[in-house]
């Protein structure tokens, strides 16, 4: 009887390990409810497309992506992270759109010696003083994109700007980022209530009265469309040129076109990626995404797609052994995959070292509003916090 029990126990243990090996799992936390779900859905579509391109496998092993919804709230994001780390014992958790959600979720992952891959958020702390060997990013550090914009404004001879951004971690990073490189005068700056405030009448009136040559804004999600509309209604187009970061993307442009917000056409933005970037991986990604969903992928989607391709390369390197955390980390760091942004490598703080492009909003050949690359502002740019990181 006792023998049978032991054999039974061994058999079930064996069964469960084989079941585990068959079901290689990777977590992906994004926003799938609230209006911000448009971003999460775009990321999910890109992850699904990446898995389709990989034949449902990661590193050649049948794999499954476990999606969790952060509900646009740091506390919920942390709960879901805890669940993936503790209950599901998943080694790699990717996603994270929002800086505040990422910061709340980082500790449980690092404490359990698991790996976190940001497919969007890039707060300054995690790039600098509190950098961690278990953290990787397939996006950017918050400061970099506005720094590229500041640099472009210098090149373009813009003398003065007015800055507007929402009052939360990323908004402050964006405002600080542009101030870091812009050499002209910042005539004024407004940090608006986030995420509640969508009426910018008071701030736009101040911007207009400031006499600045151009206006720089960061308004992600629904605030972006609202801002562009009011910018247009206030008659600022033509008198105050519009420069944005993370406010105009593949998600918001179709909606702006439907609402006829032509104030956005001709406005310029900086980014590490564009649907028109000329490389094989990007062409395939953009064409298949458009064929499947009818719209251009957003940069959120591109980063999510890259995160899965990166994970695939790491899982292949350890031959599917998800318990080999050190092996996974070394393989992730090598970044041996075809990124949609061309060359991809990590800096000392595991943030990508990459190019930043100037993009312009234009009408594409089919009459759809889209973006195109105008020039390269930075080549192989290292974020300003990398020096504070002791890795």
């Amino acid at each position, binding site marked *: 009887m006792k023998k049978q029990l032991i054999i039974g126990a061994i058999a079930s243990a064996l069964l469960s390990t084989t079941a585990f090996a068959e079901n290689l799992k990777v977590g992906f936390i994004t926003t799938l409810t609230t209006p911000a779900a448009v971003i999460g859905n775009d990321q999910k579509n890109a992850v699904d497309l990446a898995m389709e391109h990989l034949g449902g496998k990661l590193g050649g092993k049948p794999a499954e992506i476990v999606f969790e919804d952060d509900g646009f709230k740091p506390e919920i994001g942390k709960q879901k992270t805890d669940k993936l780390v503790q209950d599901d014992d998943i080694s790699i958790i990717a996603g994270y759109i929002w800086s505040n959600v990422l910061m709340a979720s980082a500790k449980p992952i690092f404490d359990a010696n698991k790996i976190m891959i940001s497919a969007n958020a890039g707060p300054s702390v995690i790039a600098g003083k509190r950098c961690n060997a278990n953290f990787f990013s397939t996006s950017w550090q918050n400061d970099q994109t506005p720094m590229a914009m500041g640099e472009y404004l210098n090149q373009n001879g813009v003398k003065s700007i007015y800055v507007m951004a929402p009052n939360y971690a990323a908004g402050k990073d964006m405002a600080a980022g542009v101030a870091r490189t812009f050499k002209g005068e910042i005539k004024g700056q407004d940090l608006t209530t986030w995420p509640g405030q969508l009426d910018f009448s008071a701030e736009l009136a101040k911007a207009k009265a400031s006499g600045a040559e151009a206006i720089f804004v960061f308004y992600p999600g*629904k605030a972006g*469309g609202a801002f562009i509309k009011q910018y247009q*209604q206030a008659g600022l187009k033509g008198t105050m040129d519009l420069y944005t970061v993370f406010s105009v993307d593949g998600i918001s442009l179709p909606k702006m076109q439907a609402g006829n917000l032509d104030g956005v056409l001709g406005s310029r933005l900086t980014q590490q990626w564009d649907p028109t970037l000329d490389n094989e991986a990007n062409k395939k990604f953009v064409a298949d995404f458009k064929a499947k969903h009818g719209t251009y992928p957003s940069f959120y989607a591109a980063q999510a797609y890259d995160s899965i391709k990166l994970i695939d390369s790491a899982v292949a390197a350890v031959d599917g052994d998800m318990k080999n955390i050190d092996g996974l980390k070394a393989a992730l760091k090598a970044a041996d995959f075809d990124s949609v942004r061309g060359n991809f490598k990590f800096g000392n703080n595991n943030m990508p070292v990459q190019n930043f492009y100037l993009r312009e909003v234009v009408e594409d050949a089919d009459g759809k509003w889209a973006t195109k690359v105008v020039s390269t502002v930075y080549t192989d740019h290292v974020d300003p916090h990398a020096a504070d990181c002791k890795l």
Partner: protein
Amino acid sequence: MSTLFLIQLLNGLQLGVLLFLLAAGLTLVFGIMDFVNLAHGSLYMLGAFVCASLTFLTGSFVWGVLLAIPIIAVIGYFFEVLIVRHLYESNHLDHVLATFGIILIADTLVQLSWGPEGIAIPLPGYLSGQVEIFPSIIFPTFRLVIISSGLLIAAGLYWLITYTRLGMLIRAGASNRTMVSALGVDISTLFAGVFALGAVLAGVAGMLIASITEATIGMGNDIIITAFVVIIVGGIGSMKGAFIAAILIGIIDTLGRSFLKDILELFIASGSAETAGPALSSMLIYIIMAVVLAVRPQGLFPPKVR
């Protein structure tokens, strides 16, 4: 500076009339039926989405608004008859719980029917420009339209409440609803009518604001708290109080957002003012509410007899 100040006053007035449209329905329902309706913001959201769809369907924003108004009235009427009516006997906590549930249901229904991304409502060319009101004071046309239509609606409500029989019943109901029903007034029809009126006012506010920002899920939840602040400051059940408090709060909020940072910079270091300014200006209206509650708990203009 003075030009900017005038423009900001106009911006404040515009926010004020929008708040009034929202608060008017809320204060009627709260004052007359003693019903706490958190889902009032959902009617505001529905107004925006229905108007957006109709604008795309008819190709005209004006038709979109005109057709959306009766639809919102019908939704408001059935909302009262089917759900709210059964809750009058319960206490305020039950009202809050039930209407909070309705918010969640409404948000999900809107997400299922219109998708999560929200809709930008296109305005006709003659509404999306700017006008020069005084020399060197240039103001967006549509915001002027909001101010004037809001003031017109306020005048209409004033006439309705002061000079009509319905208005008399509404005022009587706000003062003492038990007495009104004891005098043989058909209270259930009156309640449903008032509720539908409140729904239309909220819906119109939603249609107007969605043409500046856009129609989004949960847009009502962001503003309903401010509307409650307005009716508490103005005095619950008082239309006059709601109007004055809405304009006051609209102007104070706008001026706070525009000048508080500069004023703070006169007293404290610029870096701290940068952080304290936005934080303090978003608290400003709650500070006002706290002061009003401490000094005059019944609000600035409470209905005459309670």
